[in-house]
């Protein structure tokens, strides 16, 4: 169940919390230039955001400062959250790390807190009230920014993984209507699913009629992946394509038998080359050997 988004800071005691926050926001705005400067200095001193230029740090610092004060005052965090994700999207490719982002927000929190101490030091009771209003808000802000950064980072990582996976599962068209899907290494359920999706899309895109799935590069698979292979063969058939499976190791053959596959009914050939030749035969190609050149093939019928 989703929690309803907290829309405002719970009032401390009475509604003067809102007044206090307005007061301290006004103070923070008045002293913006000074405080922002101090903050930027502390960022440099702590050796954070080294991946960015001074100008960039200044620009972002200005925006963060304003968002920070705005969030403090209004008690709403959507704008801050959106800004945090936007900022993260920009700085993550630059190599900025989570600890840096959390670090700078905490530094800002400290800079502003000290400024509040300085301003209200004469009135201890008032200082306490101010801090009672400030602290939960400031912590909420730090949390929002950190979480926004981490979520963005995770999103980027997922996208990169997806891109890598797509690159590493090629469906090759070697001839008209003939596709090869060579599989290498370890297949997990996610990759298996992706392979199937790409194969089916490839069949449609290239109007493939025969597919050779080559498992030479795979030592063994478990029964769920074996099931997946069978499903892939069936799904390909539904798209009008015939599947030839090649390179089955004895271990894989055994796994298939174990899940109830009748290997005689599955179109299998020992190796990839043999599979391609069988595929060409099914497609009506005749493979001829020419003495002066490499093997060529001419279609016998369309």
């Amino acid at each position, binding site marked *: 169940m989703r929690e309803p988004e907290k829309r405002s800071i719970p009032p401390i005691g009475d509604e003067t919390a809102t007044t206090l926050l307005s007061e301290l926001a006004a103070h923070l705005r008045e002293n913006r230039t000074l405080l922002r400067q101090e903050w930027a200095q502390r960022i440099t001193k702590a050796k954070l955001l080294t991946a960015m230029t001074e100008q960039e740090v200044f620009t972002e610092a200005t925006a963060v400062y304003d968002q920070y004060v705005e969030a403090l005052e209004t008690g709403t965090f959507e704008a801050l959250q959106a800004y945090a994700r936007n900022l993260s999207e920009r700085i993550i490719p630059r190599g900025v790390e989570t600890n840096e982002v959390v670090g700078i927000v905490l530094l800002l929190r400290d800079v502003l807190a000290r400024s509040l101490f300085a301003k209200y030091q004469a009135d201890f009771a008032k200082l306490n009230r101010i801090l009672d209003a400030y602290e939960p808000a400031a912590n909420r802000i730090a949390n929002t920014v950190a979480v926004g950064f981490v979520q963005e980072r995770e999103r980027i990582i997922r996208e990169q993984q997806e891109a890598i996976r797509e690159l590493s599962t090629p469906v090759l068209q070697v001839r008209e209507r003939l596709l090869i899907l060579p599989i290498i290494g370890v297949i997990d359920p996610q990759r298996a699913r992706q392979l199937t*999706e790409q194969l*089916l*899309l490839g069949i449609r895109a290239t*109007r493939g009629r025969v597919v050779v799935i080559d498992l030479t590069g795979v030592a063994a698979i478990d029964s769920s992946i074996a099931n997946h292979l069978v*499903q*892939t063969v*069936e*799904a390909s058939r*539904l798209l*009008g394509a015939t599947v030839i499976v090649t390179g089955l190791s004895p271990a894989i053959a055994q796994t298939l038998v174990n899940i109830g596959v009748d290997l005689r009914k599955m179109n299998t050939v020992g190796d990839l080359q043999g599979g391609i030749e069988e595929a060409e035969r099914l497609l009506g190609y005749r493979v001829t050997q020419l003495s002066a050149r490499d093997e060529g093939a001419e279609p016998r019928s369309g």
Partner: protein
Amino acid sequence: MAVPILKQGENLIASIQSALTDTDLVTLRDALVDKVAALRIRGVIVDVTALDVLDSFASRTLRDLAHMIRLRGARTVIVGIQPEVAFAMVQLGLTLEDIPTALDLEEGLKFLGTRR
């Protein structure tokens, strides 16, 4: 919603345009079977390109259709099953058994052309 059925030579082509209710599917099945009996039909193509889902009822009805048409001496080819629909079908264990399938109308016609 009635599915348009075209006669092309000795073949019938039924192109499904949108999501079909169970009733629509049964109506289609019966219409095709009747036409095969009435006209001199040797092949029937059912184009399911526009079907978003091929669930158990649809698979069963298509299989019934193919069997009934076979009894009248004609062959059926199902064409245009979309990759994601095929993917969903096999995962749910749905099958069209031994009914011929082809990628699209063109392939379906080729298939019927080479078979008796």
